[in-house]
């Protein structure tokens, strides 16, 4: 009873926050609602007993990705009144994604019913240990491939944005650390009435 009640509570919150993400006029509010949506999905994961996945979702998406979103969105100079754009333009793409996700859910819940041995596998250990058991053994190739995809995306972003500007003056930390007082300062004894001789 308690579990079912909390499921509906968090699911309702999740859907509400998602709606606010789309319809907020201010993009910063949108990102903050997105954070709430991530938090609610973390709670849902914990409710079904997948606490590892839930907490990793929180660490990665709330603790890093959403902060970077917020970082970028806060720096944009957006006139809030001009933000009321034509939503209809995005409807076909949105329907396509929604259709794909719906098809995946139907496939998993209706057609893939033989999950008996999966269930016994899940109940045998806590889910952190299960992920550790299979991640680098059964799913080694998939895991490494997804890592390489992320690496490619990162290198691509760096290559696209990195412009070498020869006019910028940079500091050479090593040469700075290697200098001593003798390189910079010289003590000169001056006899009165003679001044400094340049040498």
């Amino acid at each position, binding site marked *: 009873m308690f579990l079912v009640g909390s499921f509906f509570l968090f699911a309702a919150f999740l859907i509400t926050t998602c709606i606010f993400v789309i319809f907020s006029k201010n993009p910063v509010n949108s990102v*903050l609602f997105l*954070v709430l949506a991530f938090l609610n999905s973390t709670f849902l994961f914990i409710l079904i007993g997948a606490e590892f996945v839930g907490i990793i979702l929180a660490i990665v998406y*709330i*603790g890093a990705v959403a902060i970077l979103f917020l970082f970028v969105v*806060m720096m944009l100079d957006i006139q809030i009144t001009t933000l009321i754009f034509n939503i209809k333009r995005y409807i076909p793409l949105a329907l396509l994604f929604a259709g794909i996700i719906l098809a995946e859910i139907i496939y998993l819940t209706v057609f893939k019913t033989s999950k008996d041995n999966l269930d016994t596998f899940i109940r045998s250990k806590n889910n952190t240990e299960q992920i550790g058991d299979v991640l680098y053994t059964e799913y080694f190739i998939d895991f490494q491939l997804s890592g390489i995809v992320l690496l490619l995306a990162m290198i691509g972003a760096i290559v696209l944005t990195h412009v070498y500007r020869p006019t910028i003056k940079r500091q050479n930390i090593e040469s700075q650390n290697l200098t001593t007082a003798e390189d910079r300062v010289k003590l000169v004894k001056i006899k009165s009435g003679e001044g400094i001789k340049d040498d």
Partner: protein
Amino acid sequence: MTSLSFELTIGILKIFSFVVPVLVSVALLVYLERKVLGAVQLRKGPNVVGPFGILQSFADVLKLLTKENLLPSSSNKFLFIFAPMLTLILSLIAWAVIPISSTYVIANINIGILYLFAVSSFGVYGVIIAGWASNSKYPFLGALRSAAQMISYEVSIGFVIITVLICVGSLNLIDIVESQKNMWFAIPLLPMFVIFIISALAETNRLPFDLPEDEATLVAGFFTEYSSISFGLFFLAEYANMILMSSLTVILFLGGWYPPIDIFPLNVIPGIFWFVIKVFLILFVFLWVRATFPRYRYDQLMRLGWKIFLPFTLIWVVITSAFLFYFGLLPN
């Protein structure tokens, strides 16, 4: 029904038994900081209110409470008030999983260390929301600095935690402490211990990494526009976070509630005593560093995080796991 309400009462009492000492030790820590800084700079520090000035921070809190709470007219009112609350709440909910002895903990969960890591990484939201909601230049710059800084140092904190977890084989905080019964991890993992303390300084925005509130360039950084008790909440949260990171250091590296050597006169002293002593020592290091080092420049801070700590911790993770694997010392 009676058993449920009984459990609820016990739970609430347990929560108070953590939150009240934390808040009192925040007040004492502020006093300690001013005394230590005074001693380092050959001054007396607070010495008027109460014996040896020990009530000074309580007097400061009363002063903050009685002042007017100003709201800037162009700020986002809801987020402006919400940000300090969020910061303090996040610094207090982390105590739910901190074990101060092998039995005394509010929630002994399987993934305690990940919970702590998640909560400490949420801490940046309070700062960034405060900076944006103030709708003013200096707070905004402080918020941007803090966002970049905390993300950078979380990476190395994550790798340090991974190194410890490889040696333990569990994500449970009590397991982590109990695997240090014979040898504290600070000895075999000394470089990680040092990096963790330095990253904890950056994560709690303490000197020499307090660039989000750099008074020399940003007035007061992200809380420039805050006054009275909403400023007080930020202040409380900063010191509560310091105590939290010190406890985390003690749990990960200094053997939690275990005495330094497991011999007769030391092991009859209750574990909470050792825990508090160790937390106090780490906190003293925080204050000592503040009194000793000048503030980093922002590019130096980023260089240290990404170009030195990140490769070093990454290589150390590989070395540690290779060592444990080669000598068959891996847990389980």
